């Protein structure tokens, strides 16, 4: 039911008028009554009603005194002052007017007593006036005096009656006034009653209003609580989904690398063209799927809020050059011109996450190349000193462009410019969303400007803090093989990773015992003592966390064994949970020798390392397990090495030499460098024939071996080739072949120099 008065809907003017009406209704009658009473009082004071009686009485009295004087004059022969008698008469006369001219004479002037008295007085005055005109004559004329006295005698009762009438009139008037007052009192009481009722109604309405507001407040409160609950649930579900996605993509990627490797192995010269085509298609699909997985992993990491930028000093110009180097091939293959320009006033060094910065650039340039059939793709990195951000990246193409609707939806997840293009061009539709999120994390954004048929321009302002060139920091390089020989229990379900770990531990001079899951690890621990346990985070049967929990619950000294968790898990709270569970240290996947070394040191199992230093801040420590690079981003690539010093990481090489038997080393060198059968030449051949899946696989192998042996230049170029092949998913520029051969030559020269001067 709609309330009679909905106060909540009232506006200010309505309140003002309501109060005004209430005041008017209340105060007007009061004012009126007050005014009436004031008038009454004024009337009383002005008209002196009770003086009627007084005047009538005075008249009677003066007549009595005149009577007495007349009597005295007649009965007493003693001479009397004639003026005194006349004066009495005059006083009596003055009294007549006071009665007849009094303001409220209306109270009596209609009564018979008044008229009778007045006419009698008038008659008397008519008779007496001539006589009193000569007082001396009068006083000496007893007859006239007697006549006058008898007239007065006649007059006296009438005047007395007038006095009584005046008395009655005053009484009537008082009654009348009382009646008026009573009437006003009744009116006042009625008014007060009415006002009380109005007030009561108002109060009731107000109370109801307050009550309703309270109810609404309660409902709102309830609603907001429900909404908050719903939001929490939705957030939890979303977070769960993100974690699930992160885990799943990770879990899928690992076996997927195996699949890719196997596909590469199938690629042998003896295949028929049809088989080769099938294989090519399988490889392409697999690589595409890998790209999708990586995108999903990025998105879910962003959504779960765990993606963090790791900022470090970055040489912007170098990054631009690397990207140019890598993308030029793809552009050239499509017959496009790629113009890359870095402004001369760019800050040399900035604080940035180089990997993510490259990711943005790759994505935008890739898109530009994808959607441009002919013309130019221009990439510009300029300085915007006055703008809100420091650096602006612009990627401009002469491609198909987009209409405004497309631009609007461009950053929407899974949206693609043209659904028919999807099949032709491919991609997850996540790339731009990821890039924009990354740009925003860097304090910038991505703006699009596009015209259908004329091309598009993506502008990325980034807030990158200028910094100074980092000092050539001395990176500790572990002299592997030093220190204690540890008994290490490794739980790792993935055979490739297990194989890798075996080699790694062997190289580091530790004894490894391997099992496939946590449950087996617990059995092994029960069997014999170990110094440390390496647990994979994701394992079947019993995962890393559960295993740690079980180990800490063991009886005996094994309960306190050091546990190192090996994980690639990107979710941040994993670490905290693991620490809570009793994990001592972490080593990230893919596991590098130096990381393991440090983890062991932190556990107190190894002495402080004997340090040797390598120049450059990018020591080649990355040894990939299986074939798990971060495929979305090409590995660091610098300008082609020109000197032998850049070709080999001498210290790393020395480690290997000290660790491996001479004949093993020789075999490896032969496998790497022999002109007839070496990996380098196999890669060159694969590149020459344009067999890109083979190129990819061989380049990966080469990278791994070269890294292990400390051949920086070869590893660098091999990594670049591998990435280019993956990125472009197409033929790789033959430019890389001479560089690879050059690297090989430099490496060989460097090796010869080391032979001559063994102690670097």
């Amino acid at each position: 039911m709609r309330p009679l008065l909905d106060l909540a809907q009232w506006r200010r003017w309505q309140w003002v008028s309501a109060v005004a009406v209430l005041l008017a209704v209340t105060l007007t009658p009061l004012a009126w009554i007050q005014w009436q009473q004031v008038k009454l009082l004024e009337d009383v004071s002005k008209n002196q009603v009770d003086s009627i009686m007084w005047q009538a009485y005075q008249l009677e009295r003066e007549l009595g005194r005149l009577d007495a004087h007349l009597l005295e004059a007649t009965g007493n022969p003693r001479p009397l002052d004639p003026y005194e008698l006349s004066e009495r008469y005059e006083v009596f006369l003055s009294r007549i007017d006071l009665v007849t001219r009094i303001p409220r004479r209306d109270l009596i002037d209609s009564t018979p007593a008044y008229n009778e008295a007045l006419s009698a007085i008038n008659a008397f005055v008519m008779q007496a006036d001539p006589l009193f005109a000569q007082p001396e004559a009068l006083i000496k004329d007893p007859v006239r005096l007697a006549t006058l006295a008898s007239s007065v005698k006649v007059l006296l009762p009438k005047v007395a009656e007038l006095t009584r009438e005046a008395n009655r009139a005053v009484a009537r008037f008082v009654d009348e006034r009382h009646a008026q007052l009573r009437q006003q009192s009744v009116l006042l009481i009625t008014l007060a009653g009415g006002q009380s009722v109005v007030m009561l109604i108002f109060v009731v309405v107000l109370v109801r209003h307050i009550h309703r507001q309270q109810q609404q407040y309660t409902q709102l409160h309830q609603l907001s609580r429900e909404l908050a609950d719903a939001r929490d649930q939705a957030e939890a579900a979303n977070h769960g989904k993100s974690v699930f996605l992160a885990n799943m993509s990770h879990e899928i990627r690992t076996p997927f690398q195996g699949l890719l490797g196997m596909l590469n192995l199938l690629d042998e010269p003896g295949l028929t063209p049809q088989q080769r085509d099938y294989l090519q298609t399988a490889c392409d699909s697999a690589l595409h799927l890998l790209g999708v997985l990586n995108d999903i992993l990025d998105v879910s990491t962003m959504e779960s809020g765990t993606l963090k930028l790791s900022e470090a000093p970055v040489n912007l110009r170098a990054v631009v050059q690397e990207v140019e180097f890598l993308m030029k091939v793809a552009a050239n293959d499509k017959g496009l011109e790629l113009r890359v320009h870095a402004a001369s006033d760019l800050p040399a060094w900035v604080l940035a996450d180089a990997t993510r910065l490259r990711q943005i650039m790759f994505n935008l340039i890739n898109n530009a190349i994808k959607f441009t059939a002919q013309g130019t793709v221009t990439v510009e990195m300029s300085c915007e000193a006055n703008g809100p951000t420091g650096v602006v990246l612009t990627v401009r193409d002469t491609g198909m462009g987009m209409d405004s609707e497309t631009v609007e939806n461009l950053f929407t997840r899974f949206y693609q410019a043209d659904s028919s293009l999807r099949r032709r061009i491919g991609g997850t539709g996540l790339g731009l969303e990821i890039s924009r999120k990354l740009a925003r994390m860097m304090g910038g954004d991505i703006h699009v400007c596009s015209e259908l048929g004329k091309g598009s321009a993506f502008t990325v302002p980034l807030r990158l803090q200028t910094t100074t060139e980092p000092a050539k920091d001395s990176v500790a390089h572990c002299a592997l093989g030093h220190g204690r020989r540890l008994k290490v229990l490794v739980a790792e379900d993935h055979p490739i990773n297990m194989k890798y770990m075996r080699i790694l531990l062997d190289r580091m001079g530790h004894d490894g015992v391997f099992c496939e899951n946590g449950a087996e690890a617990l059995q092994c621990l029960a069997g014999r003592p170990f110094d440390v346990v390496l647990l994979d985070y994701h394992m079947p049967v019993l995962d890393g966390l559960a295993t740690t929990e079980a180990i800490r619950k063991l009886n005996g000294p094994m309960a306190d064994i050091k546990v190192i968790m090996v994980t690639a898990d990107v979710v941040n709270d994993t670490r905290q949970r693991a620490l809570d569970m009793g994990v001592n240290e972490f080593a990230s996947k893919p596991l590098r020798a130096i990381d393991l070394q440090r983890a062991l040191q932190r556990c107190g199992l190894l002495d402080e390392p004997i340090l040797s230093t390598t120049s450059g801040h990018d020591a080649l420590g990355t040894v990939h397990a299986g074939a798990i690079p971060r495929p979305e981003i090409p590995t660091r690539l610098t300008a082609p090495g020109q000197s032998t010093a850049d070709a080999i990481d001498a210290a790393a090489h020395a480690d290997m030499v000290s660790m491996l038997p001479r004949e093993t080393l020789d075999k490896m060198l032969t496998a790497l460098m022999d002109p007839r059968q070496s990996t380098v030449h196999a890669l060159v051949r694969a590149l020459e024939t344009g067999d890109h899946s083979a190129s990819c696989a061989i380049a990966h192998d080469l990278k791994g071996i070269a890294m292990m042996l400390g051949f920086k230049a070869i590893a660098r170029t091999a990594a670049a080739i591998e990435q280019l092949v993956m990125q472009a998913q197409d033929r790789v520029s033959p430019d890389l072949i001479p560089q690879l051969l050059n690297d090989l030559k430099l490496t060989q020269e460097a090796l010869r120099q080391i032979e001559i001067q063994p102690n670097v």
Partner: protein
Amino acid sequence: MTTRRTLNTALLWAGLALSAPALALDAPSSRPVLTVSGKIAVKNAGNTARFDMKMIKALPQHSFTTRTPWFDKPVKFTGPLLADLLAAVKAHGTTLSAVAINDYRIDIPMTDVQRYKVIVAHQLDDKSMAVRDKGPLFVVFPFDTAAELRTSTYYERSIWQLKALEVR
């Protein structure tokens, strides 16, 4: 000139002004209309001072028009200031007791005389007043000049048919 000189303390007091005639008050030449008695320094009939209408009119005359409860319209009163009249007899009391021909009696504080322009009217609307017209003398307050005068206190003090004043 049968001037009766009263050589009392007032003579010494007023002697500073060397105005012996000021102390003199002629005897009334016709029938007296007002008798002033009590604490007065100037007398002309035994212990009292008597005024006839001529003497009243000889004092400085003042007039004003005012509304009163006794007349329907505003009326004009003319006569000497009560203060002047009292000064003529060198009254030095605190209260005036006024008596009318009909023996009406009322006390008037001396302060009233000093504070207000009270006159002893002998003319009403420029005509002499007979006894039947509240005459011959009528003490009138200037009611229209102050609100506090329009109360019964001052209406009572406004005595008509005045015949005697006693200074106490």
